[in-house]
């Protein structure tokens, strides 16, 4: 078989990956710079018997896919900052009710309408803490289309495994950039399907009673088990409760199912880290410039390395601590005021060796930008 090579925007790569992952229901609302995902779904989903909905706004889009997921579908929505802000209440609902779904946020510059067509990574913290209440979330990102394809499939797999919404935190550069990539043969990337209950009809099914491994087998709406789903704290039947023991247990379950599995969830890439004395930490499109610089300086003998994060949340504190232990300088490269920088400082023993190389003006951060900041850090002057 010939290789299925594509040369398209990252948004389209993401949409193709979702279909590869088994997506059969998408709802969305037009917003730059994510609209191409929605357009692609409108075109492609009915061709495979899937369903596409253009809703009246972004929160309605997320609500609609949550409803569809409950009937057993693999679901996704895509948006950008303002739409992601509007979705936050429904995101909390999906967390509380443990509904698998994938939410793509192709970041633009913010706050507010900000810079719709420009580069930014300003929604890192929002992805974790945008919705109210204590909780845990999974957020992934990618710097190139091949990785984006794989990480999108991974987002669907994690959503099913942990019964949780997964955020795909892309950015305008990756979303709009055209680049070649190969669509893997069907089956090459393993897919995780819906874990359904084996409880027979007529036997009491407890939709919110976790198994020993923490997973909760589901029963499709419209199937043989009728149960309640609510955003209130609930008992094993899904019925509202304020019993402190039940509330405590559910709260811990929602957080522990993700934070106790960081080692299984976490994905990253390492470039020249073995002997690096200066380590760049980056993610998304920023990591492209960081990698370019690292390879450029390596050819001149500088001991520069790159850790590219693909899992943003849950944050891999243990990994960062280990990798950066012997580094002289750690430089976080990102297009915000240091949202990952803060986590890196928390992760490592000597936070004074951690620096920020950033841009917040809507311009894409270049290798030269990073190089100039490196020279300042190393006391060489620009």
């Amino acid at each position: 078989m010939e290789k299925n090579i594509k040369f398209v925007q990252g948004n389209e790569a993401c949409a193709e990956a979702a279909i590869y992952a088994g997506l059969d229901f998408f709802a969305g609302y037009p917003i730059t710079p994510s609209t191409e995902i929605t357009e692609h779904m409108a075109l492609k989903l009915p061709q495979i018997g899937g369903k596409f909905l253009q809703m009246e706004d972004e929160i309605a889009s997320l609500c609609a896919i949550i409803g569809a997921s409950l009937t057993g579908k693999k679901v996704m929505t895509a948006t950008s900052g303002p739409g992601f802000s509007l979705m936050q209440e429904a995101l909390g609902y999906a967390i509380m009710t443990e509904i698998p779904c994938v939410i793509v946020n192709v970041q633009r510059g913010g706050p507010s309408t900000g810079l719709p067509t420009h580069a930014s990574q300003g929604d890192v913290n929002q992805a974790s803490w945008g919705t109210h209440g204590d909780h845990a979330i999974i957020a992934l990102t990618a710097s190139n289309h091949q990785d984006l394809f794989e990480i999108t499939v991974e987002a669907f797999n994690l959503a099913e495994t942990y019964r949780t919404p997964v955020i795909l935190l892309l950015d305008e550069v990756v979303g709009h950039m055209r680049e070649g990539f190969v669509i893997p043969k069907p089956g090459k990337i393993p897919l995780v399907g819906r874990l359904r209950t084996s409880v027979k009809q007529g036997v009491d099914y407890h939709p919110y009673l976790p198994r020993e491994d923490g997973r909760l087998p589901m029963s499709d709406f419209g199937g043989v088990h009728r149960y309640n789903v609510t955003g209130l704290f609930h008992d094993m039947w899904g019925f509202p409760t304020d019993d402190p023991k039940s509330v405590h247990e559910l709260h811990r379950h929602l957080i522990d199912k993700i934070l106790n599995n960081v080692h299984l969830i976490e994905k990253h890439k390492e470039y020249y880290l073995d002997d690096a004395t200066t380590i760049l930490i980056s993610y998304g499109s920023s990591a492209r410039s960081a990698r370019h610089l690292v390879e450029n300086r390596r050819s001149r003998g500088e001991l520069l390395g790159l850790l590219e994060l693909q899992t943003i949340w849950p944050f891999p504190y243990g990994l960062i601590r280990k990798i950066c232990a012997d580094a002289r300088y750690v430089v976080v490269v990102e297009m915000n005021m240091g949202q990952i920088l803060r986590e890196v400082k928390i992760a490592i023993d000597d936070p004074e060796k951690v620096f920020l190389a950033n841009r917040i003006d809507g311009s894409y951060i270049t290798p030269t930008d990073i190089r100039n900041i490196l020279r300042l850090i190393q006391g060489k002057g620009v």
Partner: protein
Amino acid sequence: MAVRDYLRERFFPHMWCPGCGHGTVLNNLLRAIENLKIEKNDIVMVSGIGCSARISGYVDFHTLHTIHGRALAFATGVKMSRPDLNLIVPMGDGDALAIGGNHFIHAARRNIDITAIIMNNRIYGMTGGQFSPLTGYGKLATTAPYSNIDHDFDAVSLATAAGASFVARTTTYHVKQMADIFQKAILHKGFSVVEVLTQCPTYFGRKNRAGSAAEMVENYKKSTTPIGSKASQENSDLIERGIFIEKDLPEYCGEYDKIIQKAMKGK
């Protein structure tokens, strides 16, 4: 099947106040479903937030108690992915027409086959008696302590203008009519809206000196009249009840099936 077979008695007693009209709505809804002999597994009830929304917890269907105002958006997702299921969405007046107003008009515009019930008690009960978009000018509420200057929506006119293909109004006094309308609304293929005037003696009633629960129910007899009745022509203050709109229009899920056929052919 008896009405009580549709209830989750494990979760009773319910949390509604004595004299609340919502129980009457629940009763008649279950009678309608019983008459239609719909299998419990074929019904999904989706609700939002508020006193009305708690109705979904008490019924033995697939039940989705969601977030404030967005029940119809969730229901749209369920219906689109499983068009064979019956979707019933009970909402409060604030839930449906304030925070949920946008979803309401767009669900109506799509004519998606969902039965939307607006349990209109003219107040936010769960939060303790604030005015809603249906409270009405000159009424009192905890957030209108001097007098409400917000004008109300006419839910029937709004639903009609938005494109709902079945629109009706009834009250907790007219229980036979309520069950009958629910039956027709559920059978109707398209977006159906039933506004039920239901009493809140605890907040709306007390604030506005509307009397006891029984007096409030009795008042629905006096303040309403059948559509196009002689009384209605003589007294425009009377609220009309009955079925205002019942028409055959292309239903959304059926329309999308045609899109799938078109897309598969062109592939």
